[in-house]
């Protein structure tokens, strides 16, 4: 789960990483109530999850209260922003990049640092990898002095600067561990004229499998591009919405992704990716309800090849869903695996044809969506 900047900075603060003074505001009224406490100029930042906020006009330095209120109003009323952060502007002498992530092959934490901040690290890794200082850290042995020396000297820091930097690095690594981070990043990390460091921005992605031990964070509508994606997430069913007209209701992540490819190869287009495998295989009713929310869908394509997710259970769930919703769009099924003969009979009783070849089912769905067959 990706956190908002204000949440990431609160996590930084808890771990001792210096951050600018800030206030979160959820309405123009809250902005006018708080703005008097800031000396000008200050920074107004939309709290959205997308990257590249600066270029998108979602962050601005404002010179006076009037500009601040005007810009805040624009963000709330015209840009659909739900929260903004008012923050002290930092007078800085330099910018760095610092992040901790994981290296799956080495099974270690990976610290990435660069003496140039505000960079796109992916782009830099591709064009000038020598500028990035990398340090792997074994989680059980932890961050030690030699790791920090490798990084600080690698960045050309020494004396008081290196000391102050090491405090930030140590705190960031601690935050990485404490918050079960997939990625924790400070970009830019400001270096002030007094040789101190301040986190200009904050990014923190918590591992989804660790959310149960990271209480206090909830998914919000802002985490998703569409209403139905958000509803599906609340229901615990993986769902992605697209612009096409074939609604996928499949079981198993790998199989659903492959059906997605096969639709595109066959000249069709996907309305939504819905995966109800694993513990969700008994939830065909919930799955179909979500698929039917997508008004662009002209056909529902069900492909499963279940292991634990028994074919007969899925087919029975489909029968329940059809009885409940009486869908007006056609359904193509390719439900196989354990007890598939029973499943085929249930499907025939629904008046549908049980297909057993994925590519045949995909072609049929594409033909229906294109109006070639009904």
């Amino acid at each position, binding site marked *: 789960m990706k956190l908002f900047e204000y949440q990431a900075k609160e996590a930084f603060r808890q771990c001792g990483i210096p951050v600018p003074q800030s206030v979160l505001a959820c309405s123009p009224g809250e902005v006018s109530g708080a703005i008097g406490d800031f000396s000008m100029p200050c920074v107004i930042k939309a709290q959205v999850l997308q990257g590249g906020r600066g270029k998108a006009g979602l962050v601005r330095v404002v010179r006076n209260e009037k500009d601040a209120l005007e810009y805040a109003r624009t963000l709330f009323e015209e840009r659909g922003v739900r929260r903004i952060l008012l923050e002290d502007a930092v007078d800085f002498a330099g910018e760095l990049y610092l992040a901790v992530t*994981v290296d*799956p*092959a080495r*099974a*270690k*934490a990976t610290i990435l640092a660069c003496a140039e901040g505000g960079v796109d690290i*992916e782009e830099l*890794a*591709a064009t000038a990898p020598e500028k990035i200082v990398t340090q792997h850290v*074994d*989680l*059980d042995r932890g961050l030690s002095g030699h790791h920090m020396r490798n990084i600080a000297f690698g960045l050309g820091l020494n004396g008081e600067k290196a000391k102050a930097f090491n405090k930030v690095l140590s705190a960031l690594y601690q935050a990485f*561990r404490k918050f*079960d981070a*997939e990625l924790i990043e400070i970009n830019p990390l400001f270096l002030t004229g007094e040789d101190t460091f301040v986190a200009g921005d904050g990014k923190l992605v918590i*591992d*989804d*499998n*660790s959310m*149960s*031990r990271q209480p206090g964070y909830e998914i919000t509508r802002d985490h998703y591009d569409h209403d139905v994606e958000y509803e599906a997430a609340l229901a615990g069913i*993986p769902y*992605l919405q*697209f612009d096409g007209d074939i609604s996928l209701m499949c*079981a*198993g*992540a*790998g*199989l*659903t*992704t*492959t059906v*997605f*490819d*096969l639709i*595109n*190869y066959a000249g069709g287009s996907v309305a939504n*990716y819905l*995966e109800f*495998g*694993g513990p969700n295989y008994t939830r065909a009713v919930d799955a179909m309800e979500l698929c039917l929310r997508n008004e662009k869908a002209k056909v529902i394509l069900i492909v*499963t*090849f*279940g*292991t*634990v997710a028994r074919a007969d259970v899925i087919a029975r769930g489909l029968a329940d869903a059809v009885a409940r919703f009486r869908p007006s769009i056609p359904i193509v099924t390719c439900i*196989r*695996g*354990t007890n598939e003969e029973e499943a085929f009979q249930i499907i025939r009783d629904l008046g549908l044809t049980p297909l057993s070849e*994925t*590519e045949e089912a995909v072609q049929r769905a594409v033909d229906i969506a294109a109006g070639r067959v009904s």
Partner: protein
Amino acid sequence: MSIFIDRSNKVLVQGATGKEGSYWTKHMQDMGTNVVFGVTPGKEGQRVEGIPIYHTIRRGLQDHDADTAMLFVPPAFTKDAIFEALDAGIRKIVTIADGIPLHELLQIRSAARSCGAMVVGGNTSGVISPGKAMMGVLPYWIERVYKPGRIGVMTRSGSLTNEVTAEVVKAGYGVSTLMGVGGDSVPLTRFAEILPLYQADPETDAVVIIGELGGTMEEEVAEAMESGAFTKPLVAFIGGRTAPRGKRMGHAGAIVTGSKGTVEAKVDALTIAGGLVARKPSMVGPMLHELMT
């Protein structure tokens, strides 16, 4: 001989008394797996499908020999259970747990590597040598998938395994050993670490890998082929060619971030290394045929 698991392995089952554990322990035995004892703290003295249950691995090992561990343990307790097995000297372990915390995956993998153990999973259906032995939740009774034969299969996805392996069988082949490395972003054992076992296995003539977008495991396979460490014919199917960037397609590991993990990069690497990459599952069988005749 097969790789990783056959009838000579003495398998202990952690979490054997749960609903899933007892159901699949029976199936493992029915297929021929030599299950020697089960472990559930607090349940010593019970029996599941005829096998004795102990509080701890240490207590079980006082009465039995074991060299392999199968875990039906929830994700939150998996690290501790694996460390228990490693401390007891077990060096082959399979965990099906879906949802092991990321940092614990790193710690488990690191510990396993430092003692030379192979831990397979999580978020996998397991490992099977059809007709011999099985560890996990694999429906060996589906004959059009789990037919004994001479093709090794490595996979990141349970559902796609059935789809693709059915095409291998349709083309007239069967499976020597199928190893599911799982869909997590940190698989505890990676494709390239299994390849040497297939290379050395006289009962494996060729390998099929079932990959997907995200990560670098397929690229590592290509490196092993380039270096000459793996020389048998190899066919790959990789899902997610048309997946949009930045969207997580089901599995935790199935996401393209920045320039890493694209299917194009994987296809290029494997093709240059001499493998064949199928666009559709139905092309896997004919491609195997092409390489093996």
